């Protein structure tokens, strides 16, 4: 029925099977939309946020998807600026994943601001002393860059490409993509960094506070670094899941291997910097403010935060995947590669959780105890909403757009049309 829209030389499942898949993902999406409208109509009392937790599940999800969407800017930088030509075979998918991640982040923020009709205030009446203003500027602009990078993929649809204007437009956009990629890298550096800066400048919260260079705390640089390391891991992770779902090989091993190797070295250098940062904070910064390391990880009844979370983030989901990815033997084993990128992705999410939620769990007054928080179903549903949206957009893009240039070669079809 829709065969005229499917790219040349590839095979797709029957339309009925595809429609059923979209319907299942659509049902989850609908659940999230109901929760979203409840938040819009009734307000933020639908959440379990309170005076202790002004940032909660939504902001964690935002920071996590922004870090994981970093694969788009870093792969674009490697492909268009540094000239790693092999990555042309995965850059389309990195852009699509980045587009999904950033549009999801904006969607969540649109719910979180509480008064979406006044969301434009952050641009018009900008507070230039706020890290979050820089984030809002860069996030919105970078989403524009990702949209510009995604449009040529849409224009490559078999039917759209037949229209000469759209064919020329797509061709021209590809021609100057390096300019957009460079702009994307510039914007990403600042918004990833500023998100890290938010917790790093909290002088009144010694768990998050860090020293740094000038006005930039070390977390500014660590966030950008971790996004450049874990973003490509997420691209590989989603690529492998797509290959499992479609039961096809979509990207050649040498392409994945190159991206995994670069991500591995980025992750290794990041985690060394993170360990040094953590040690300096534990040995110098926090004691100077009257705290010991164990003050943050013990005597916190009702809270799940113990040393385990530090070991999980830095050791199991940091050092371990870094070693696995830089070791060519382990990296070239498909099973171990999948474990390594999964751990790296979990590590980035854990880091954002710690720097957003654990920071707020620690009491700031001597007579207070640790604050606990569990999200409401509305918060959970609206956080799962972007996942369902992402699944649907990826499914539609995979079906109708030539996302994987190596797919026809890797999966020849008899008498392929």
């Amino acid at each position, binding site marked *: 029925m829709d065969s005229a829209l499917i790219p040349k030389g590839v095979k797709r499942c029957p339309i009925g099977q595809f429609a059923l898949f979209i319907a299942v993902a659509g049902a989850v999406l609908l659940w999230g939309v109901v929760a979203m409208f409840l938040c819009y109509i009734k307000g933020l009392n639908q959440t379990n946020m309170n005076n202790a937790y002004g940032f909660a599940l939504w902001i964690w999800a935002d920071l996590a998807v922004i870090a994981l969407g970093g694969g788009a800017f870093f792969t674009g930088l490697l492909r268009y600026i540094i000239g790693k030509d092999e990555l042309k075979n995965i850059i389309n998918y990195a852009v699509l994943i980045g587009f999904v991640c950033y549009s999801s982040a904006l969607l969540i923020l649109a719910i979180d601001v509480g008064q979406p009709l006044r969301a434009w205030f952050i641009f018009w009446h900008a507070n230039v002393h706020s890290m979050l203003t820089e984030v809002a500027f860069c996030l919105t602009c970078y989403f524009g860059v990702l949209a510009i990078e995604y449009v040529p993929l849409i224009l490559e649809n078999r039917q759209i490409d037949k229209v*000469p204007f759209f064919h*020329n437009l797509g061709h021209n956009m590809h021609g100057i993509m390096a300019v957009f990629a460079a702009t994307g890298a510039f914007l990403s550096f600042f918004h990833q960094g500023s998100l890290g800066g938010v917790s790093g400048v909290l002088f009144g919260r010694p768990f998050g506070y860090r020293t740094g260079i000038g006005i930039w705390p070390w977390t500014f640089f660590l966030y950008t670094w971790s996004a450049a390391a874990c973003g490509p891991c997420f691209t590989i992770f989603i690529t492998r899941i797509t290959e499992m779902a479609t039961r096809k090989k979509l990207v050649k091993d040498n392409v994945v291997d190159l991206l995994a190797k670069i991500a591995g070295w980025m992750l290794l250098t990041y985690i060394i910097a993170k360990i040094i940062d953590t040690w300096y904070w534990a040995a110098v910064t926090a004691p100077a403010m009257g705290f010991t390391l164990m003050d943050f990880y013990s005597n916190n009844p009702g809270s799940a935060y113990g040393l385990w979370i530090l070991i999980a983030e830095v050791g199991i989901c940091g050092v371990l995947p870094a070693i696995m990815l830089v070791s060519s033997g382990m990296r070239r084993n498909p099973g171990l590669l999948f474990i390594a990128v999964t751990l790296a992705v979990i590590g980035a999410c854990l880091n954002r959780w710690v720097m957003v939620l654990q920071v707020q769990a620690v009491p700031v007054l001597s007579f207070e105890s640790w604050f606990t928080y569990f999200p409401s179903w509305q918060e959970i549903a609206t956080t799962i909403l972007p996942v369902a949206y992402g699944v649907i957009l990826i499914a539609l893009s995979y079906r109708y757009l030539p996302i994987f240039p190596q797919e026809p070669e890797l999966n020849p079809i008899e008498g392929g049309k």
Partner: protein
Amino acid sequence: MFPFSFEWIWDMSHMVFHGGLWYALSIMGLGVTYCIIKAAYDTAKGKGGHHEHGHH
């Protein structure tokens, strides 16, 4: 956002923040405008007849 807004001050913070914003918006705007105008020009010249190939 603009120098004519009542809260605008000509200090370093405003110039860096908004300079960065307008720099990025200008590149995106000019880039896309160039692509659209060139595509219209190329189409008028008869380029872009149906020949499918990937750009990657």
